[in-house]
């Protein structure tokens, strides 16, 4: 017990000292960090695999993985230089950050299709998005609502024809049938529903309505791109290599993720990795390679955000989404 106390206190002091040391040595070596948008889970398997298998180290990067949380804004932390790289929100998040003049640049996009979907009970009589008309449709009002607006527009529905309500971060109201339609992510809430034995549902994918918004942007700062392009390239190479390895060795990847997190359920993580693989290798994820940035869908998302008033002025997409690094990633690292 007492040795543990000493260890705890020692750890605290060490943390304080290394914190100070990090400030001192920032100019000298390359301790770099990647900030995730959430806590350790299979959604970030590629990053954890790249670290555990030594891909970052081999690329000359002394990498620290910083998990995120509900109060962590990856865009701000990366743009400010507090973190070198990040797995940030997605197309919308990068566009908003650029509109706010944050010097943030996306160098890759993890998820190739929209990871959000809409669910309705089979007996509800809702057989297509067009049937959302007059129904209570719940979505998260922290960004994904614009995807819903785009989907409705694509299906020829007006927003006021649908009763759009705010969805909490729990599927309980949908389970209690307070909503007719709810939003899920393919890699978490949909699995949660299935695990709770709710299988009498229909899933509507935005991509089927022609709405694609790529998520989990791989980002860095303008400063990094200007001053240390080699490191940016090394990071993207190693990260995509990590993803490829994770999909080719899923069981090992789950082991690595389980070791990195705490209190994770293996079955959850396996299901999550399966779904993450699906959204990352869909469409151009296979034809072009992992991490491909679909400029056409990005352009459409921006146009939609402006149409819905979420953005005031368009940003220069060429400087916000820099494909140059991705193009230089060897095919062996990104092609499945």
């Amino acid at each position: 017990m007492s040795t543990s106390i000493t260890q705890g206190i020692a750890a605290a002091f060490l943390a304080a000292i290394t914190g100070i040391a990090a400030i001192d040595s920032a100019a000298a070596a390359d301790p770099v960090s990647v900030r995730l948008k959430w806590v350790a889970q299979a959604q970030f398997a590629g990053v954890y695999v790249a670290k555990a298998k030594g891909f970052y180290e081999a690329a000359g990067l002394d990498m620290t993985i910083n998990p995120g949380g509900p109060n962590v804004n990856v865009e701000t932390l990366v743009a400010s230089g507090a973190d070198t790289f990040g797995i940030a929100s997605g197309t919308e998040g990068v566009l908003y950050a650029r509109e706010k003049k944050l010097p943030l640049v996306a160098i890759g996009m993890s998820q190739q299709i929209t990871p959000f979907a809409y669910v309705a009970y089979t007996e509800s009589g809702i057989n297509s998005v067009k049937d959302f008309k007059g129904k209570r449709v719940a979505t998260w009002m922290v960004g994904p609502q614009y995807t819903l607006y785009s989907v409705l527009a694509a299906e020829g529905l007006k927003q006021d024809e649908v009763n759009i309500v705010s969805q909490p971060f729990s599927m309980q109201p949908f389970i209690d049938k307070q909503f007719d339609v709810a939003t899920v992510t393919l890699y978490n809430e949909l699995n949660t529903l299935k695990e709770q034995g709710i299988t009498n549902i229909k899933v509507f994918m935005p991509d089927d309505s022609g709405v694609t918004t790529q998520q989990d942007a791989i980002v860095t700062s303008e400063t990094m791109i200007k001053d240390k392009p080699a490191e940016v390239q090394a990071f993207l190479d190693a990260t995509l290599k990590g993803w490829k390895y994770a999909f080719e060795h899923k069981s090992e990847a789950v082991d690595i993720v389980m070791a990195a997190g705490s209190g994770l359920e293996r079955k959850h993580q396996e299901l999550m990795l399966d779904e993450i693989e699906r959204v990352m290798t869909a469409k151009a994820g296979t034809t072009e390679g992992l991490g491909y940035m679909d400029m056409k869908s990005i352009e459409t998302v921006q146009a939609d955000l402006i149409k819905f008033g979420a953005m005031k002025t368009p940003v220069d997409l060429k400087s916000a989404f820099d494909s140059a690094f991705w193009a230089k990633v060897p095919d062996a690292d990104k092609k499945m």
Partner: protein
Amino acid sequence: MNARALARSPVASVVYVAAAWLVLVPLFKVQPRYLPPLPVVLADGLSVWPDLVAGFWRTLVETVLGFLAGVVLGVGFGIAFSASRIMERAFLPIFVALQTVPVIAFGAIVVIWFGNTIMAKVVIALYLAFFPIAVNTLRGLELADPQRIALMKSFGASHLQLFLKLALPTALPNILIGMKLAVALSLAGAIVGEWFGDTVGLGVMLLQALYFEQIPRVWVLIIACGAMGTLLYGALVLLERRFVWWRTD
């Protein structure tokens, strides 16, 4: 301890709640989403036992370090405020203003300053802990009886003697009140701090349980946090009984 005393002890109340949980949930067929049966919760806790212990320990370290730093700073500022009106006028309003800033807003800055280190959590725990201690220290020090001060002064007591022999002993019961308030806030601070990114801790596990909607796990963590809070509060009560048994009035 006889049976009646045992029946009224704090341990007994835990047993009563556990028994009620055990019996009433199946009896009224409470949906597991509202309150899972106690055995389910315990089994879930057992299934993640090593992570739970590691998380408990980490959160405890963060809480205790933040709390201790809060005691040092809080008592320090309390003494400084009572010694100098200028200090009080200059700093107390700032502290009050700081206390009204939601910890979430402050936490984002702490992450930029300290990154994902244990320091970040300690600082957030400290931020929540020090204010009640500072205010209660100040209040306690102001309670020293002017007649006694006059008496001690007439015997030639120095400022230090006045402080150590009269003001501080008078203030200690109040300081302990501040500490008891602060220890619960430190725990909340440590848990919120973990929500700014970490891999170990009760706060991290709570976040994951909420994300995956593992209701039994949420209850496991509620119990774990409650146990830690009670443990720390109990330690302070023991400290109080052992060393600060007197009352000011």
